[in-house]
């Protein structure tokens, strides 16, 4: 099986025959996967930038229920703040940008949640996660890591599968959950949302670390794409196919 897929991959090198195959073979990514991928990308950047702006207004992190400048933080981010209240050691205060940042953060969060829900529903109907992301039976062996790396032009290798599943099923749900755990109204309806983390400030700290994990994923994701062939992979996520159609 592995031998066949390797042969298939070699035949996929751009050439006149490969171009013909690209037009007749099924798309590498379905339209829904492509559209939700790019909406999620846009939302992630909006959330990252607005989240950073909000963080600047209090660049200190705590554990437990409460946290404020009278208390010893778990750790501080050594940057200036947009509030004079915070003792940062800097002699200047940055401009307050929390208004639009908060509006944008929640709007992007809503679009992300709705897009994610659509993606999960689609995955349930088409078995996308089982077919394309859950590791194959043959992958579940240490030999997977010692064999020659198979090209993943038509499919993902086991490390990619595990990483994507972790981002989709663990990191994104956790970052949304910890975000909701900071909402005084939401936790009034469902207190366990925050109590499982040991308090609102713990949820805020976890929200920060999950964001860092997502950022790390993004950087590795971009590096991997660059190594695999940036334009071919990016084109595949836009048009569905790694090669241009004829």
């Amino acid at each position: 099986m592995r031998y066949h897929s390797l042969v298939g991959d070699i035949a996929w090198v751009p050439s006149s025959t490969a171009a013909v195959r690209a037009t007749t073979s099924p798309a590498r990514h379905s339209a829904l996967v492509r559209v939700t991928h790019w909406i999620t990308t846009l939302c992630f950047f909006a959330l990252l930038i607005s989240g950073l702006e909000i963080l600047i207004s209090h660049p200190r992190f705590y554990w437990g229920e409460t946290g404020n400048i009278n208390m010893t933080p778990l750790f501080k981010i050594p940057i200036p703040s947009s509030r004079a209240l915070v003792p940062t050691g800097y002699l200047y205060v940055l401009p307050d940008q929390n208004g639009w940042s908060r509006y944008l953060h929640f709007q992007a969060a809503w679009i992300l949640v709705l897009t994610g829900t659509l993606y999960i529903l689609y995955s349930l109907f088409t078995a996308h996660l089982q077919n394309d992301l859950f590791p194959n039976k043959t992958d579940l062996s240490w030999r997977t890591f010692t064999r020659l790396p198979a090209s993943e032009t038509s499919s993902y290798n086991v490390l990619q599968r595990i990483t994507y599943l972790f981002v989709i099923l663990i990191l994104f749900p956790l970052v949304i959950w910890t975000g909701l755990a900071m909402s005084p109204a939401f936790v009034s309806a469902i207190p366990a949302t925050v109590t499982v983390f040991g308090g609102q400030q713990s949820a805020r700290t976890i929200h920060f670390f999950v964001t860092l994990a997502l950022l790390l994923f993004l950087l590795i994701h971009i590096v991997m794409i660059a190594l695999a062939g940036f334009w071919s992979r990016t084109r595949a996520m836009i048009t569905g196919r790694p090669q241009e159609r004829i």
Partner: protein
Amino acid sequence: MSHISRRKLITSGLAAATGVTGLGAAAAIAQKEGLVPPDHGGLYGLGETLTYAAQRLLTKHSLAREFSRSQISQPPLANEMAPLKDSFKRLQAGGFADWRLSVDGMVARPAAFSLAELKSYPSRSQITQLACEEGWSYIAEWIGVPLSSILEAVGAHPKARYLVYFSIDREWWDSLDMADALHSQTFLTYGMNGGELPVANGGPLRMRVPRQLGYKNVKFITQLTVTDSLKEFGKGLGSASPEGGYAWYAGI
């Protein structure tokens, strides 16, 4: 050349028309049910409306989390404040004996309450968290009179939809929908941690709305206005916050 079939054109046209009608109907129902915030216009109106509608449906009767006395933050945090004006300092010099809370608008009996009169109503206390949109928080015991008791005393009109509240510094004003105004944990607060409410924390009288973030908890309250529309107040966005770029609803 791309070719759009007639069937495809008709079905997409019908789908689009259904979508637009559906959205229109949803908007009308949401408006009628009080699920549209006053700052629903503009670039971020979609997110704001979704947040407010979802939280209003989810939290209509829910109670803010209460904590034990041992969890009270010591010392209570006093955050940044605009310098106090002379009008405030004069009342402070008199021990706030002349502090008045006037209540007007859609009420049967407009009135002005002194602090002593407010304290003559059954007092309630809650140990709840005040969380600021910046990220910090503290827990305190808040003592006061439920806003609903005062609204009942003045005979607020059943068709009223919002309660507008003003600080002595009239630049600071805000409003609540009736679900929050009549909520059992929404207090006109005059005490904290067993004593008087310090000026640094909004004394002598502060609005306490524990299911929303700190900035809805306006300090130095002197006026309440009951209304069925926010259009006549400021720029019609519901509070001073949206005029300064912040959301009217602060449940998250």
